[in-house]
């Protein structure tokens, strides 16, 4: 069975790196990017993520704009925003743009894993259709 591919886009490398490693230990295939442009570079390679774990505030494009961009590249790609800046307005706007879920940092790894799995299942179903 193919591993779920997770791209972590966060300018806080001290957060992204250990999270990436923890997800790897939980049988996910992960890549990290420090900004939306970096992520786009990654998407232009052959490696296509199933789920993106995205920060909200980053240099360059912010999380919501990055979400729109990713959805343009791959509409079936599921995005989970994990940010320290919680806001209902942002959450609602994100949902409008196709966001799968919105979690507030610091996040429980089990909860995140569960949401990633759910997102992956949703993507799988979408791709089947």
């Amino acid at each position, binding site marked *: 069975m193919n591993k779920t591919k997770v791209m972590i886009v966060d300018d806080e490398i001290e957060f992204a790196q250990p999270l990436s490693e923890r997800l790897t230990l939980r049988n996910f295939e992960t890549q990290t990017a420090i900004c939306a442009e970096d992520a786009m570079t990654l998407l232009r390679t052959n490696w296509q993520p199933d789920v993106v774990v995205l920060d909200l505030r980053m240099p360059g494009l912010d999380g919501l704009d990055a979400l729109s961009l990713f959805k343009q590249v791959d509409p079936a790609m599921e995005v989970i925003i994990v940010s320290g800046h919680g806001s209902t307005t942002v959450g609602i706007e994100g949902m409008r743009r196709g966001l799968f879920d919105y979690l507030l*940092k610091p996040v429980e790894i089990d909860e995140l894993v569960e949401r990633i799995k759910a997102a992956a299942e949703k993507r799988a179903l979408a791709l089947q259709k």
Partner: protein
Amino acid sequence: MNPPLANFSKKITGVLCGITSNGAFCVKGRYQGLQRRLLVILLLIGILPLSVMASLSFIEYRALLRDETNTNARLSAESARQTIEAYLQKLTTAIQIISDAYPFQELANQERLDKVFTKLNQDFFGVVDLSVIGPDGIQQAYSGPFNLVGKNYLTSEWYTRTLAKKMYISEVFMGYRHVPHFVIAVGKMMTEGQGHWVLRASIDTEKLDRFMSSIYSEVVTDVFLVNQSGELQNSSRHYGKVNDHFLLPDIPPMRPIRLEEKKGAGSTLFAFGHVEHTPWIVVLELQAYAGKNSWIAFKSQVLWLFGVCITLVIILAFRVARHVAMTVRSADDERNRILAQTEHTNKLASVGRLAAGVAHEINNPLAIINEKAGLMKDLLEHTNEFIYKEKFLKQLTSLQGAVDRSRTITHRLLGFARRMDVKFEPVQINDVIHEVLGFLTKEASYHNIEITEELQLDLPLVKSDRGQLQQVFLNIINNAIDAVGRDGDIKISSFLMNPNHLQVDIVDNGPGMPPEVLSKIFEPFFTTKTGKETQGTGLGLSITYGLVKKLGGEVFVDSTVGSGSTFTLVFPIIANDRGDALQ
């Protein structure tokens, strides 16, 4: 206002007073000063016109009375003078007729003179004698009670003046008889042209006294005659007998009656008038206006009325000033209460914004700590046993526990700051209470706490947000359970407070709170839960307060140490726009 609500309102005002100021607006003296100033102004407004009116009436009436009194005095004096003048005129005319009718030689005849005297005495009461004085000044004949024949009047003043004026009325003098009298003398030229002879009549002043007594009246208290130097010419009631001295003012020798008022205790008015062809001045002593009963009565009535009016003005001014000061004070209190509430709300909003900023900034480093600790733990779990493995795992678990606690705080802070949309809908508040109790009953029974409900069945619906109402009741009832601890009671009652509001009371029999805690209970980050298991963030009641205000309601708390606490929630039956405005 409903008494319980008023009570709570007072308490919350006291609480807010403590929060917002150093007691600057609790200045009793300021309102006393205002009351005093108002009292002075009102007294001036009331008393000044009253005094002016009273003074004007006083002055006008006095002038009127004085004019009337003066007129009466002039009339009385004029009447007295005319009476005296008429009598003297008649007597003088009679003597002149006698002197014209009889020649000197005939009148010098004693028998003739006696006859004439008898006739004269019959017609004119008071004529004591009648005498004829020859050109040599020696009395030639005398008819009267004394024998004065042969008396020489050549050097007498009256004789000299009679010869000069041909007709003379003397001042009163004692004469040879030592009896006060005056004379009327007429000088006639001898038929032979050798000098003048004189016919003289003496009149006792008793006659004058009789005239004077007829002039006395209620207002005329004394009447008498004085000569130009003030010597009395007849008896006076108050100023002595004949020849006594009366202090006469300067009276010009003119016809009109002259008035002089003698001020003082007696308040007397004098009228003076010259009697024509005589050396006399008639003097009337009258009661001045100030001594009259009508004036005294008027004065006492005015004073009495003035006193009553002043008393009424003082009472009214005092009451009005007090009422205005009280009204201003209650308006100020209300304004201060609203200001304090606004300040409190602003404070909460500021704290909320600050909290949100802090929470956001802390969440990121917390996430790093969480992930790094998690990774270390993951790696350790995939590592073979080594001497400190368990200890490391324990430390990492503890570290993650600390992160969890911090996360709870930051997430609540964000919940406190968050402005969620309020969805107003008709809500039956009893249903909301039931739903919340459904969550909490198990927890309460675990602590042996009995929750009783006294919910009014026919309560009208409120227009509110169901989810936020649940949050409110959950927070307060949870707090009550924590406060009671074990083995206690919580009573929840709902009822219609007034046609526009309903009230929910949540009463516990926990340890209660002292006033210093009560005053800070809705402050953010204030907590009394310091135990390891029950440690609080100090945000629960702040959030509750904010939610209740957002829903257009009020929350009050009353507590007594040792007896427990009562949280009172008041909600409008028809929500106003306040909730929307706060969003």
